[in-house]
């Protein structure tokens, strides 16, 4: 009982700041404009909603694969590199955490836009005649999201790599295995749990992204979170927006439960 008492400020805060508004949203999804499930049937019957869902899944899968694949060698250097490398990579991982997502998205914009650094350089070097379309499309969204999410992939990978016993690697070396054989047949399989964990974290995180797709997608690569925003602020339809939010939350939840169960069984 006393433990519950000690926890009560946190529970109260979570209840007021999170649970209460959330139940409000849930309630709206079945009551606005009138009681019933019509918001859900409208959401799931709308081809626009489905195209946004597919785009969201496509972008998030790309981002997940790219972020984990790029984070893997980065983490490897961080864990196994020499001291200078480690410090350098640690800074490279930590500094982005201190910058707001907004300023990072604008940073990418100034790099990638038609009159951005990359296009002007390439044009003045005579490599391209017309500017490349690097933002206001899915490419820009993927770049921006991946950049934001790589550090999140690093930590699960790092804990899995730290758990690899050096002697196992020595044993493989002693048997004459090449570096490639050791990496692909020993090291990568032994860090599988980290890869799965990193992919899960990045994927779930990416599904709800809002600012990066809005800024770098330029309204042309609308993802689910931006669609919800549009349904609230541009075409005021709170009931539909609430239903979409509920669908997003439930599907992420179901996805997580399924994956955790699978991971639990395999390990």
């Amino acid at each position, binding site marked *: 009982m006393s433990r519950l008492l000690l926890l009560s400020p946190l529970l109260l805060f979570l209840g007021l700041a999170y649970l209460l508004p959330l139940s409000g949203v849930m309630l709206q999804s079945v009551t606005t404009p009138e009681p019933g499930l019509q918001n859900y049937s409208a959401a799931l019957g709308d081809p626009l909603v489905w195209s946004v869902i597919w785009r969201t899944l496509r972008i998030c899968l790309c981002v997940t694969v790219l972020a984990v694949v790029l984070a893997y060698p980065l983490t490897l250097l961080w864990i196994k590199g020499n001291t200078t490398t480690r410090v350098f990579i640690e800074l490279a991982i930590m500094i982005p955490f201190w910058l707001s997502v907004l300023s990072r998205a604008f940073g990418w914009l100034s790099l990638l836009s038609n009159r951005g650094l990359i296009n002007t350089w390439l044009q003045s070097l005579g490599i391209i005649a017309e500017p490349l379309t690097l933002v206001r499309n899915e490419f820009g969204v993927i770049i921006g999201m991946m950049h934001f999410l790589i550090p999140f992939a690093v930590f699960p990978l790092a804990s899995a790599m730290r758990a690899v016993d050096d002697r196992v690697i*020595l044993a493989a070396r002693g048997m004459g*295995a090449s570096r490639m054989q050791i990496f692909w047949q020993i090291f990568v399989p032994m860090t599988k749990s980290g890869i799965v964990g990193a992919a899960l974290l990045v994927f779930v995180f990416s599904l709800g992204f809002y600012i990066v797709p809005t800024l770098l997608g330029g309204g042309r690569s609308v993802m689910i979170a931006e669609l919800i925003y549009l349904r609230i602020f541009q075409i005021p339809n709170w009931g539909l927006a609430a239903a979409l939010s509920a669908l997003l939350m439930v599907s992420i939840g179901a996805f997580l439960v399924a994956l955790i169960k699978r991971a639990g069984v395999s390990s």
Partner: protein
Amino acid sequence: MTAAKPAIEAINIGKDYGTFTALTDVSMQIMPGEFLTLLGPSGSGKTTFLMMLAGFEAVTRGVLKIGGADKTHADAETRGFGMMFQGYALFPHMTVEQNIAFPLKVQKRPNSEIRTRVADMIDLVGLSGHGHKRPSGLSGGQQQRVALARALAYEPPVLLLDEPFSALDKNLRGQMQDELRRIHAQMGTTFVFVTHDQSEALALSSRVAIFEQGKLQQLADPTTVYERPSNRFVAEFLGDINVLPATFEGATSKVGEFSLTLPQAPTASARHIAVRPEKLAIQPDGSQIGLPCVINDRIYMGAQSRLQLTSVADGSPMVIDVKTSDLNHTAEPGQQIRVGWAAEDSLIF
């Protein structure tokens, strides 16, 4: 054996870590088929020496020859040694069979050969029926057997073992030691075994190399290192020993009032006589020969009993091991007895 070429020859091998010398000029020849144990307390340099043999530690000084060829700076991958690590170092994501097959696949042996070889190795270490299990589903002793099978699967000329039994309990350890002796005899592979357990070293090896403070102290067969240790460290490290202050006059030596005629006169630096507890004998009641001692304690250890004594002359603590059945009622704490030993059992330091 003298005609055979050494499997491994170390010539003045040394290792420095910065300014710290971990190993000072070790020279030894390891003969094909022998079971050599590197024995010493932790930090004595024994593991460093093994890691240099394996190629996992760079050699600072000296020359290392393997099969007659200079391999001082050769990569571990090219030495073709088997290695068993402390903590087994099995591949956790592979089954027992896949673990044992891994080195064979690395060597690109034909699949049919790999299959028969894996099955043979599983039989050899007594793990039939466990081939499809992962290491996490096996006991410590079974994991140990997998590690042994994997290390021997590709028939390396030399197997290096780094304290492989340190994590096992005493019974299992004894069992694995017997197993290792059997497999050594059966395979004829050269074994180089690191341990800090002296009884393990004495029980298993054909020769024991004793290390302390980065120096090789003695290299000889188990009987010689135990019975004729070359210095006081070796004597004290290999089991219990009584070290008693003594005076020397030619070949005659006196410990208190107990006088011995040694087989030969010791060097001028001799100050002590050392005797193993089991070499001491209690003199019959009323005997005037021997060193008078007071019994402090009597410890029953089953077939043997140990008496803790204090020499009456100078108060030196001593221990003596006797058969329990030989002890009479007078051997009780507080009693005075006389102990003696044969001159040839005396070690002089």
